[in-house]
């Protein structure tokens, strides 16, 4: 049997397989998928307008039906593999669009509602003696900068040194336990961090105490594990060859860590720190119970209550005055400012890693 197969000419009935055959086939025009999508939407909208319009049904139906149509069309014109490819491409693109919907919607809502208060007064005045119209977020913005700044000052050195210990020095049981606790800390609900700071200060100053620094401590508890994790990740991608090269030059371990390993990982560590700041800067719950509510500028985190953007936003929205409109507007304005701050941090992080990042071999 096999001998005969080998010697005989290729069976003429079999379609010639291979790339040449594919190339000879037709192609769907570039506008094809779009046309299918638009056509399906129009037809489906027409049908739905008869039986009762529903935007969600229209979106889901259009995607599912056009995936099917484009698959059948491409299979007929271009072949099985291309048909599948086009179908899956459309499916993946649609899922991406779906994932973007809440994000875009959120940005749109906050921007459209917050834009009305993007005026000079909003950024230059506090809420001192303001009832009703006007007023601003100066006190809250300053408070957020001080509270987050202090938290960063405390958590960055601790976090980086902990990561250096875990990755460069630690071994055995202690390392395993520390890694475990860092993991657990990563998952701590932020309100628990707030209660921790609250309880800690209540021991010394009684339960009524509210200070800016209490908020910083709560945020520090939340930030440390994030900084440890991201720094450890960065230390991990520093090639061992660099450490060995340094050791082989007769350089001691701590100098190697301080002058070779950390500088090599620096851009990544900075990026990680900025992302950690962005992560905690919008924390509301822990600040609500530690910093309290305050309507004037307070520059001293060690005395008295201190306003901040997340708590200001929450409070203005939850407990508006009469009439409520100016309070609600200020809440959206503060929310928009918070988003802008986070966005600036992300852009700065990207800039740092692009500009100063070092290509590391895997």
């Amino acid at each position: 049997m096999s001998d005969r197969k080998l010697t005989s000419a290729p069976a003429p009935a079999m379609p010639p397989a291979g790339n040449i055959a594919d190339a000879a086939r037709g192609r769907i025009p570039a506008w094809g998928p779009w046309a299918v999508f638009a056509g399906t939407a129009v037809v489906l909208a027409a049908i739905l307008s008869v039986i009762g319009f529903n935007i969600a049904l229209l979106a889901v139906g259009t995607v599912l039906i056009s995936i099917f149509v484009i698959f059948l069309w491409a299979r007929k014109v271009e072949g099985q593999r291309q048909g599948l490819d086009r179908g899956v491409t459309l499916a993946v693109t649609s899922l991406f669009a779906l994932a973007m919907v809440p994000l875009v919607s959120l940005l749109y809502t906050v921007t459209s509602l917050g834009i009305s208060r993007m005026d000079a007064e909003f950024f230059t005045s506090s809420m001192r003696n303001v009832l009703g119209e006007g007023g601003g977020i100066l006190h809250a913005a300053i408070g957020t900068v001080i509270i987050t700044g202090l938290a960063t000052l405390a958590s960055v050195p601790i976090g980086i040194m902990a990561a250096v210990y875990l990755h460069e020095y630690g071994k055995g049981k202690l390392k395993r336990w520390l890694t475990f606790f860092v993991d657990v800390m990563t998952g701590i609900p932020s309100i628990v961090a707030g209660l921790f700071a609250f309880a800690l200060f209540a021991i010394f100053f009684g339960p009524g105490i509210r200070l800016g620094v209490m908020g910083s401590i709560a945020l520090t508890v939340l930030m440390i594990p994030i900084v440890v994790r991201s720094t450890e990740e960065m230390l991990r991608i520093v090639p061992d060859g660099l450490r060995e090269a340094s050791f082989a030059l007769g350089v001691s371990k701590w100098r190697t860590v301080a002058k070779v390993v950390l500088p090599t990982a620096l851009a990544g560590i900075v990026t990680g720190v900025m992302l950690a700041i962005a992560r905690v800067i919008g924390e509301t719950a822990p600040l609500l119970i530690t910093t309290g509510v305050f309507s004037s500028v307070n520059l001293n985190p060690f005395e008295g209550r201190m306003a901040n953007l997340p708590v200001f936003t929450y409070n203005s929205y939850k407990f508006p005055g009469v009439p409520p409109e100016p309070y609600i507007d200020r809440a959206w304005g503060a929310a928009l400012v918070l988003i802008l701050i986070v966005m600036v941090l992300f852009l700065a992080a990207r800039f740092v890693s692009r500009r100063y990042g070092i290509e590391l071999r895997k």
Partner: protein
Amino acid sequence: MAAVAADAQTPGSGVGKRIDIKDLNVYYGSFLAVKDVTMTVKPNKVTALIGSSGCGKSTFLRSLNRMHELINGARVEGSVTLDGQNIYAPSMDPVRVRSSIGMVFQQPNPFPTMSIYDNTAAGLKLNSKRIKKDQMDEIVERSLRGAHLWDEVKDRLDKPGAGLSGGQQQRLCIARATAVQPEVLLMDEPCSALDPIATLAIEDLIEEMKRQYTIVIVTHNMQQAARASDITGFFNIKETGDPGVLVEIDETEKIFSNPSLKITEDYVSGRFG
């Protein structure tokens, strides 16, 4: 060896030292990787270590400047003496050992954060040695000249070392290792990531450097051992999982023409490995 004194081009650099290895056993945890090696590395000679993959020659090499013990659980038994001083003596500081026994690795590994200049001076700068600028310039130039790299990089010393080609990077690593003026230079397959031309450049360099340093080179390439070395040691393992042993060590010429053991002859003539 008389050439050492005549070499006026490199003032102040040391003369190669002799290493005596006695009953050296090298372990990874409880696994014995290299067993009972006793040999002498002669000063100002190039000693090549050959053998098939996994036979322990790199492990052995790394135990000569206490790099081996950096691996978790790794340890060494026996003695390695550098001109009479046991480098494994309890009073011996491994950091000091490594500054007198330098190393060049398989993959060129210049520091990515540093310029060509800083890479060359890294051994001194990282240790915060207080050295005047003009003196440092002199050391950098001498080291780069010694590594045959000076003419190629003298106009871009402030550019990152990672921007050089693979062969240039490896010569930069050699310059970096020699800038701290070690007495012995260990090279762990320094040419395996390089093309033939860059390999030849490094081999020429090795030939020249033995006037100032004792050189031990691990290589997979038997032609390289034959070309570049004075003495060749042959490592082998019986089976996977067995420890590597030093089968035979002798003048390179003798190993490649008339070795005393059949197994060495089989290996160098390409019958296995």
